[in-house]
């Protein structure tokens, strides 16, 4: 059901871990839904020097987190903000329909981490930061139509 690319990123995930003095940290998802992604960014001179992630979730959740970190590493903050879930899906050679929400989470996790960085910098938060989801008891995974109880 998964592409070779997904299985590669699932079995050998890139950039797993934490960054202690991270410039920005973003966490999205909800344990009740079965997936949480947390992304740590180290940003210097507007460039993403390092990125790490931790994910609780299925194969697709781990693979999308992994590839998303690869896609933004070395990029400028503005470039990273342009990451879309569609690009994540394409980079993985596709995802099963039921797993598309994982790519949405990956995009949101990256943007949430950048948002956190910008707040710390005292900068205006870009409106392009999608959703800016606040996982709560009522609703989560804002784009995947999942309802959590």
């Amino acid at each position, binding site marked *: 059901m998964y592409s070779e690319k997904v299985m590669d990123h699932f079995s050998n995930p890139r950039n797993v871990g934490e960054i202690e003095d991270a410039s920005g940290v973003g966490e999205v998802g909800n344990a009740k839904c079965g997936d949480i992604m947390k992304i740590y960014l180290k940003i210097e001179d507007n460039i993403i020097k390092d990125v790490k992630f*931790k994910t609780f979730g299925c194969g697709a959740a781990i693979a999308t987190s992994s590839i998303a970190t690869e896609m933004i590493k070395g990029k400028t903050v503005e470039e990273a903000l342009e990451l879309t879930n569609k690009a994540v899906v394409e980079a993985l050679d596709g995802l099963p329909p039921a797993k598309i929400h994982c790519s949405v989470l990956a995009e949101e996790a990256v943007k949430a981490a950048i948002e956190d960085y910008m707040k710390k910098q005292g900068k205006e938060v870009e409106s392009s930061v999608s959703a800016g989801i606040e996982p709560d008891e009522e609703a989560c995974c804002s784009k995947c139509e999942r309802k959590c109880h």
Partner: protein
Amino acid sequence: MDGIRGIYMDHAATTYTKKEVLEEMLPFFTEYFGNPSSVHKFGRDVRKHVDTAREKVAKALGALPEEIYFTAGGSEADNWAVKGAAYANKSKGNHIITTSIEHHALLHTCEYLEKEGFEVTYLPVDEYGLVSVEDVKDAITDKTILISIMYANNEIGTIQPIEEIGKLAREKGIYFHTDAVQAVGSVKIDVKEQNIDMLSLSAHKFYGPKGIGVLYVRKGVKLINFVHGGAQERGRRAGTENVPGIIGLGKAIELATENLEESSKRIMGMRDKLIKGVMDKIPYTRLNGHPDKRLPGNANFSFQFIEGESLLLNLDMKGIAGSSGSACTSGSLDPSHVLLAIGLPHEIAHGSLRLSLGAVNTEEDIDYVLEVLPEIVERLRQMSPLYEKVKGGNTNV
């Protein structure tokens, strides 16, 4: 399996067809191809073998041959029992009692009947997945026409107090159906002693072929006919018989009954070793289901902080086949209804793993799983943001 150790621990999903079973089936595709309803010798010869298979099923259940109806499997048998009894007895009442942990073949049938004007009580279960006989008793009204409670649960393996429920139902004059798809071939069943009016079973759960099952219907039970169009199965379930399937089911149930004690004992020994090993080696783990009242081959765990599908994929890479009740593997957005019914929070239900043992497993398989599983769980936990939050804290489940 391509040089990888292939360890099958998903017997609750399906089993392979035993060689002896397949050998008995094969001539019925070629040499004995006649239609059992035909008058000529080709048909008559096959009819005899179908009758023999029916007798074997009856013997295994403590029933009469004329109480055995072949179906296309367990789901069909469940559909027939519940819809059939509901429609045939609606002049008496419209109330059905079942549990919240039934197979979907039962639950979805009940939901359908609710739309048709029937009322259904879904009884809760305790933390082990056991239904209370008192609850069954209290749920009975003067409108109750059917009680349907599974013999043993497919996910967590809990075996229900079937005999007590049967006794109660008989005293109250209410039909009692049990979905015994997981139980047949694993535990001893006697429909007369246990006062079971209807029972569903499926051959591929006990080393028979897929696509063939049985609904046992006690003589005198009022049930509407399920398939119209012919005299097969005494006119109640029309359609030319799946003869090779029936022959295979007959042989499989005969073998399963003969070897029941011996094989259950062997499998239970391995299961207990597996459960003990997992619980000893992996912290933050919960055993789902009842400690004793459980199917011989069933082990079901919840590992905190990780998700079931990624666990299954990792096990698969090591050649181990299991299953999970996580949302990602259930085909829906929610984790297993059974795990939620025993009170597990969503996040813990997502991290469940069912390993169901059977004929192909050996002690070495258990040793291998006990070697590999703790490493996989730890690796996924190291990757989990939930784990870092609780490390060192009190996280007993």
